[in-house]
């Protein structure tokens, strides 16, 4: 479904991504791991079009999407959620998701219909599936951090993605909130058949959900494979276990 080949990104001489490769099939859940500064977020920004790569290609569903503007990539069914909370602060929870749904339905330049009556069912369904229905009419800026992260995912669902890219979905969450997010991701994958690409520091979570793992170090992808294979890979152990700041089961 997604093939990334020898991707590089050069920031004024600093190679944030230096030959990253990745491939994933429909229905898979793939985790990207790697130490801080390995270039995970940059890689995601390149895939989703927020940044233009210096070289390399990105193919989605067989189509070359390298260098296409982000909004166009989204319309092809490749969506993302963010590491830091990135929602529409002044809109209600309902409206947050509705924006994405309306955008997907190509109503963006519809000036004269009443938005309140549009996409209500689908939006409500999404809110229900992520468990935010009770708060539908709260201003999203006033939500708790955990709820905002969930909303973050819900917005992405509004685009009815085929591939969802999640940048550290549980960053800054309490253990309980992490648990909720984990089960939500499982649900998305199992029930909705969503393909998920995510990066994460919490190794418990990675190994609990990922079908495959890709490891990055200094902008390079070292390996992509089944969790068990990655676990015993020598290179990974050197890259990762060399340090002492890992909690890795």
């Amino acid at each position, binding site marked *: 479904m997604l093939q990334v080949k020898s991707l590089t990104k050069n920031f004024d001489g600093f190679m944030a991504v230096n030959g990253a490769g990745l491939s994933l099939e429909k229905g898979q859940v793939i985790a990207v791991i790697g130490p801080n500064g390995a270039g995970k977020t940059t890689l995601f920004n390149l895939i989703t079009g927020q940044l233009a790569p210096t070289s390399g290609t990105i193919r989605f569903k067989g189509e070359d999407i390298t260098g296409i503007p982000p*909004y166009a990539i989204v319309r092809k069914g490749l969506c993302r959620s963010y590491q830091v909370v990135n929602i529409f602060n*002044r809109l209600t929870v309902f409206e947050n998701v509705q924006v994405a749904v309306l*955008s997907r339905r190509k109503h963006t330049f519809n000036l004269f219909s009443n938005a309140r009556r549009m996409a209500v069912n689908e939006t409500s369904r999404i809110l229900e599936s992520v468990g935010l229905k009770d708060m539908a009419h709260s201003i999203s800026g006033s939500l708790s951090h955990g709820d905002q992260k969930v909303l973050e995912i819900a917005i992405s669902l509004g685009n009815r993605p085929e591939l969802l890219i999640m940048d550290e979905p549980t960053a800054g969450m309490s253990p309980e909130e992490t648990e909720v997010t984990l089960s939500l991701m499982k649900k998305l994958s199992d029930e909705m058949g969503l393909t998920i690409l995510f990066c994460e520091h919490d190794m418990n979570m990675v190994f609990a959900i990922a079908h495959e793992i890709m490891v990055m170090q200094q902008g390079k992808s070292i390996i992509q494979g089944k969790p068990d294979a990655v676990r015993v890979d020598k290179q990974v152990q050197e890259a990762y276990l060399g340090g002492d700041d890992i909690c890795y089961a």
Partner: protein
Amino acid sequence: MSASPKTDWKKLIWALMGVAVFFVLPNFLSRFSIYLMALIFTTGLLATSLNMVLGYGGMYQFHHAVFYGFGAYTTALFLTKTGLPGWVAFVCAPLASALLSLLIGLICVRLSKLYFGMFQISLGSLVWAIIYRWYSFTHGDDGIHGIPVPDLIASGKSAYYFALIVLVVCLMIMYRIVESPFGRIFQGVRDNPERSEAVGVNVRKHQLVGMIIGGTFAGVAGSLFVVVEGSVFPDLLFWTLSLEILIMCLLGGWFTFLGPLFGAAIIVLLRTFVGIYTEYWTIVLGIVLMLLIFFLPEGVLGYIITRYRSRRNPKFQEG
């Protein structure tokens, strides 16, 4: 903001009652008050049109007055230089303003925030300089006076009704736009352009369309000004006026739909009546503005709405 139809009805009834009051009001007002109300309608429409871009689009539209003045000049030039029926002028003014905002917008929207605003000021100043200098066509800094407004709307009272009707119609259209899918998404762009792009919104295009909408209604306000005052002059496109409109939006509350109208009314009234007692009206405005930013950053109407909501539902209370 609940989506239940009940509140819609309530709102509609309130709005109708409000309009009805304004329709009978001239019978009880002095000539000057009628004029002042018409001026408030005009300025209010201008401020609301700015808020479409500023409050709903989050764009730093620092030189909105250009579109206002451009509309006013288009109307004036049509009325004085062509033999076409007066109504043509009122149709052409918003179109001309829309065209100008398209032009300026095409150059500006790729810039962000402060750059956008400052670039707009320099482009707008160029338009101002052209109108200020082009004596043979625009009469330069003297302006055009004694513009022959169609007889039907020439008198004070009829100008009032014309301004009122135009204002109400424009407000309805603008409200519709705010509540439309476009408006919803435009607000998303305001809150978070990056995220909007990530859900498939063409942010630049939205901002451009937003600018054109704001510019068009500013053009309408410009032709209303011609009806109410019978004069046009380059001050209408000067950047200080743009900042004044910004203040109106801020004062009334730029995250509310009617706030700017409210703010415009307060500014016009204060300016007129404080001006009677003192030459130092500017210092009063400055101090009001400072207090506002310190204590009521949501604006007067914004504050009232927030409080009203928080009383009904403590969840809405914001830090």
